[in-house]
C-alpha cells in the first residue's frame, strides 16, 4: 500500500491557511457532545487537552505520573525555536522551514514542517501570555541564543530549564480546564491497550496504578501524546517511566509505526560508571562553545591523570577532523567521532568509554569566574554525579540515547491510518526526519497541541456520531480480558530474573548492534537474538506482589515486555533502510570523511510498518516524500 500523507497541494506558503479553511468545523454547541481521550500530559498532551477543553469538548487526560507537571518534557534544557526574527538577523518562517528540512536530512514531510515553522511564532506569544518567564534583555524584550544547525539566533530560553517552564505553562492551562470541568484528569493511570471498533479508535484500556483496577474509557477520538521510546536502549536520558507501551499497543491494533530506526544519540552526556547505573544525564550542548574535546594520542596514556598528558600527546580530534566546525560539529557527527576514538582504545574513564571536555584553555583566557558564570550549574551537576571538579580536571563525556524521531505514522492532520487515532509530539514521526535539530522538540510538542490538533480533530469528529461506543461493547470487554490476561501471566511466571535484568540485557544488545553505528551483520545478529530474550522473558521473569495493588514491578514488567517486542521492529527498519541518513548510520554507506551517505533514489520515503503478529515479519508501506520547495542536496555543515 502507498501511504498518503494528504498534504495540501499548491504554494507551500498558503498550505496551512488554505487547509484550515477547507477543513470542516464542529458547531460550538455540538462540541460538548464529543469526548476526546488524551494519553500523556507532556508539552503535546497537556497543551492539546487544555486547548480542546477550552473549545468545549469533553476531555479525559491520562498520565502515569502522579501529576501532569512531571512529564519528561520538563527535563529539556536548551530552548525553543521560533522564526520571530527579533534580532533582525535574517530569520524567517521560510528559513526555519529550510533549516528543519535540511537538519532532518530530507526525510520529513515538507508541508508539516512548513506548518510547524509558521505556528512557531504563535507558541512564543502564547507562552508569554501564560506567564512563562523567558530570558529578557535590559530593555525588557525577549532574548534569544544560537543553537546547532542554524546561522541565526532564534532560540528562546528560560535559564537552563526551558522545558520545565513551557511544561508548567501547559500544566497551568490544563489545570484551569480541570477546575472548569472540561478536562477530567486521571493521574497514575497507564494506557495498556487501544480499543478499535470497526477500524476506528474508540477507547483505551487503562490500569489504575494505585488500585490495580483495569478499565476501559470510551471516547469519540483518541489522542496519543505519550512521548518517545529511547528507553529501549535501557540507559538513556529519558525518565525511568518513559515507555513505548501506549504507541506499541496502538501499533498492535493496526496503527502503522514509521521510521523507528531514526534515533538521536546526544553527544554531551555524563558517561556510565557501573552496571547498576539506571540512567544517563545530559549536559547542555552549550558547553561545547568553550570546552575542547580530546583523547590521548597514545593508548598507554589513557589511564594517566589528564593533567600529566603533555599538550603534544593530546588529540583534539573534532578540531582535527572538522576544522571549520571544530568542537561545534553537529550532534550525530560528534557522537560517532567519540565512539570511534573509544573503539580505537583511546577512551578515558571507566571502561574506556569517555572523552575529555576540557575547559583549561577557556579558563586561562577568560578566568574561572567567567566560566562559572556561564556554566556554573552544569559544573555543579557534574560534580554531584562524578565527584570531580570540572574546573580542575577535564570533564568526561560520552554520547547517550536521547530522542526518537520515529513514531506512529500520521497524515497531515496528525491522524494515524486508524481513523480517530491522533498522535502528537515525540510519539509521532512527522517533522524531524532522520535527525532533530536542537530546540525543535519543544516547538513541535506545543505546535501539535496548541495549534494543530484543535483544528484537525474537528474534521474527523464532524463525520462521526458522538458516543457511538459504550463501555459494554464487545471490543471493550475483549480488550479488558486481554490486558487482564497479560497481567495474570506476568505475575504467574515466578521465574528467576527481574524485569530490570531483561531490559538491561536488551538495552545493551540494542546499544551495541543498533546504536550509533549499524551494519547488516550487527542488525541481523540482533534480529536473531531478540526472540530468544523474548522467549526467556515469558518463561523466566519474576514479578512480585499482585495485580490488585500499587505494584511498580508489574509496571516495569509490562513496559519491558513491550520494549522487547518493539526492539525487533527498530532493527528490521534499520536493516531495511540500506542507506545512512541523519541519526541512522549504516557503516556500509559513508563518504571518505565519515559523513552519512544518503540514497535518495531508493529511500526518499517514510517507512510505515504494519504489525503482523509477535515475532512475525511486519509489512512495509511506503509514503514517498516529495521535495518541491527545498532541493535534495548533500547535507554539509563544513
Amino acid at each position, binding site marked *: 500500500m502507498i501511504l498518503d500523507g494528504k498534504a495540501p497541494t499548491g504554494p507551500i506558503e498558503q498550505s496551512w491557511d488554505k487547509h484550515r479553511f477547507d477543513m470542516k468545523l464542529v458547531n460550538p454547541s455540538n462540541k460538548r457532545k464529543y469526548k476526546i481521550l488524551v494519553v500523556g500530559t507532556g508539552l503535546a498532551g497537556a*497543551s492539546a487537552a487544555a*486547548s480542546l477543553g477550552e473549545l468545549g469538548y469533553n476531555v479525559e487526560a491520562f498520565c502515569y*505520573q*502522579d*501529576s*501532569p507537571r*512531571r*512529564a*519528561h518534557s*520538563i*527535563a529539556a534544557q536548551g530552548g525553543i525555536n521560533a522564526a520571530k526574527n*527579533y534580532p533582525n538577523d535574517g530569520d524567517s518562517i521560510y528559513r526555519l522551514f529550510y533549516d528543519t528540512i535540511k537538519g532532518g536530512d530530507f526525510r520529513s514531510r515538507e508541508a508539516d514542517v512548513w506548518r510547524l515553522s509558521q505556528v512557531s511564532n504563535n507558541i512564543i*506569544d*502564547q*507562552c*508569554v*501570555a*501564560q*506567564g*512563562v*518567564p*523567558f530570558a*529578557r*534583555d535590559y*530593555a*525588557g524584550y*525577549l532574548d534569544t541564543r544560537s543553537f546547532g544547525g542554524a546561522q541565526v539566533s532564534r532560540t528562546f530560553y528560560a*535559564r537552563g*530549564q526551558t522545558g*520545565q*517552564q513551557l511544561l508548567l505553562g501547559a*500544566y*497551568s*492551562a490544563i*489545570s*484551569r480546564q480541570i477546575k472548569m470541568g472540561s478536562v477530567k484528569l486521571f*493521574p497514575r493511570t497507564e494506557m495498556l491497550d487501544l480499543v478499535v471498533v470497526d477500524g476506528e479508535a474508540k477507547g483505551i484500556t487503562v490500569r489504575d496504578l494505585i488500585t490495580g483496577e483495569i478499565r476501559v474509557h470510551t471516547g469519540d477520538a483518541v489522542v496519543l501524546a505519550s512521548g518517545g521510546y529511547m528507553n529501549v536502549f535501557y540507559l538513556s*536520558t529519558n*525518565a*525511568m*517511566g518513559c515507555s513505548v507501551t501506549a504507541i506499541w499497543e496502538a501499533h498492535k491494533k493496526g496503527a502503522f509505526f514509521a521510521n523507528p530506526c531514526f534515533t538521536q544519540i546526544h553527544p554531551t552526556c555524563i558517561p556510565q*560508571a*557501573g552496571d*547498576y*547505573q*539506571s540512567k544517563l544525564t545530559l549536559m547542555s550542548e552549550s558547553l561545547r562553545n568553550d570546552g575542547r574535546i580530546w583523547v590521548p594520542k597514545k593508548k598507554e596514556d589513557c589511564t594517566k591523570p589528564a593533567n600529566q598528558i603533555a599538550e603534544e600527546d593530546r588529540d583534539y580530534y573534532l578540531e582535527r577532523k572538522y576544522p571549520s566546525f571544530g568542537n561545534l560539529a553537529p550532534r550525530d557527527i560528534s557522537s560517532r567521532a567519540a565512539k570511534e576514538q573509544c573503539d580505537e582504545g583511546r577512551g578515558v574513564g571507566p571502561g574506556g568509554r569517555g572523552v575529555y571536555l576540557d575547559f583549561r584553555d577557556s579558563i586561562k583566557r577568560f578566568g574561572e569566574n567567567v566560566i562559572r558564570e556561564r556554566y556554573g550549574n552544569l559544573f555543579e*551537576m557534574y560534580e*554531584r*554525579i*562524578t*565527584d570531580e571538579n570540572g574546573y580542575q580536571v577535564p570533564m568526561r563525556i560520552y554520547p547517550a540515547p536521547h530522542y526518537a524521531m520515529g513514531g506512529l505514522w500520521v497524515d497531515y492532520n496528525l491522524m494515524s491510518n486508524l481513523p480517530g487515532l491522533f498522535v502528537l509530539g515525540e510519539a509521532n514521526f512527522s517533522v524531524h526526519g532522520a535527525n532533530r535539530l536542537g530546540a525543535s522538540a519543544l516547538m513541535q510538542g506545543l505546535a501539535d497541541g*496548541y495549534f494543530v490538533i484543535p483544528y484537525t480533530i474537528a474534521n474527523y469528529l464532524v463525520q462521526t456520531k458522538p458516543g457511538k461506543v459504550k463501555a459494554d461493547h464487545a471490543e471493550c470487554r475483549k480488550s479488558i480480558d486481554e490486558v487482564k490476561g497479560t497481567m495474570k501471566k506476568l505475575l504467574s511466571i515466578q521465574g*528467576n530474573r*527481574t524485569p530490570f535484568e531483561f531490559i538491561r540485557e536488551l538495552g545493551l544488545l540494542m546499544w551495541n548492534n543498533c546504536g550509533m553505528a549499524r551494519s547488516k551483520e550487527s542488525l541481523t545478529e540482533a534480529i536473531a537474538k531478540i526472540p530468544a530474550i523474548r522467549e526467556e522473558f515469558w518463561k523466566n521473569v*519474576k514479578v*512480585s506482589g499482585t495485580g490488585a*495493588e*500499587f505494584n*511498580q*514491578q508489574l509496571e516495569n514488567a509490562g513496559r519491558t515486555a513491550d520494549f522487547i517486542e518493539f526492539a525487533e521492529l527498530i532493527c528490521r527498519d534499520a536493516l531495511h533502510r540500506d542507506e545512512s541518513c541523519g541519526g541512522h548510520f549504516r557503516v556500509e554507506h559513508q563518504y571518505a570523511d565519515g559523513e552519512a551517505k544518503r540514497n535518495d533514489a531508493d529511500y526518499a520515503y517514510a517507512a510505515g510498518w504494519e504489525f503482523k503478529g509477535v515475532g512475525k515479519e511486519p509489512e512495509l508501506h511506503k509514503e514517498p516524500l516529495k521535495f518541491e520547495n527545498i532541493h535534495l542536496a548533500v547535507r554539509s555543515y563544513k
Partner: protein
Amino acid sequence: MSAHTSDDKTMSVKLIVWRQKGPNEPGRFETHLAKGITGHHSFLEMLDVVNEDLIKQGKDPIAFDHDCREGICGTCSTVVNGVPHGGQERTTLCQLHMRKFKDGDAIYLEPWRARAFPIIRDLVVDRGALDTLIQAAGYVSCHTGGVPDANAIPISKPDSDYAMDAAECIGCGACVAACPNGAAMLFAGAKVAQFAALPQGQVEAPERVAAMINAMKECGFGNCTNHYECQAACPKGIDVKFIARLNREFHKALFKAKAGAFIPLVEGE
C-alpha cells in the same frame, strides 16, 4: 552526610525503612542491608540494588516515587535521616550520591509526612493537593490563541528574573514535609509571586491569592510560622521571601476587597 566514600571502594549500609501496605494499613519500620554499594551509586540506585535483592528473595520491594533521576521532575520524595531529600544543599534525592555516606551507616527512610499527603504505599504519598492548589488559580486565564505578540509588553529584566527565581519550583513537596505545620506556603508563595511580578498576572492577582489561600485551607495544609525549614529543604533553593510576597499580595487583596474592587471572600478572614 559529611562522610566521603571513594567511588572505588564498596560499602554496606543499614536501611531502616518505613513500610506500609496502604493508606489504611498500619505502618512500621523494617531493616534491610544494602551491600556492595559504591560512592558512585545514586541514592535511588542503591534502593534499586536492595529491591532487586528483595524480589529475588520473593519479598515485596520497597515502593518509592522517582522518574527523571536528574533533579527536575520533582517525583522523588523520601525523608532521609529526618531531612527531605537527604540534606545535600539544593539537591533532590535522585542526585544525592552514596559517597556522602560511609560504610556501616544506619539510614532512616520515611515518606513525606503531612496531613495533606496521604500515604499510598511505603515511601509513596499522594501529592494531589499541590495540583489542587494550582487548579484553584495558579494560572493566567488566557485561552489558546488571540494573545498579543510576545514583545508587545516589555518586562523589566529584574522582574523577569524574580519571576524565574520563583518559577523554578519543581513541586516535589519537600517544603511541606519539612514544615512543622505541614504548610504549603513556599509552594503557593512561589506561584503567586511569579505571576504578581509579571504584567500578564496582574489582572487576576487578588482573585488568585485569595483562591489559593482558600484552597490551602481546604486541602489541610497548615500555616507559616517562620521556621524557614522549607527553604532549607528545597532542592531548588526557593527563597522564603516568596512567602512574604504571598502575605503582601493577600493583604493587598483584602484592601481591594474592602474597597469593593473585588469579592474574594476567604472564609474566616
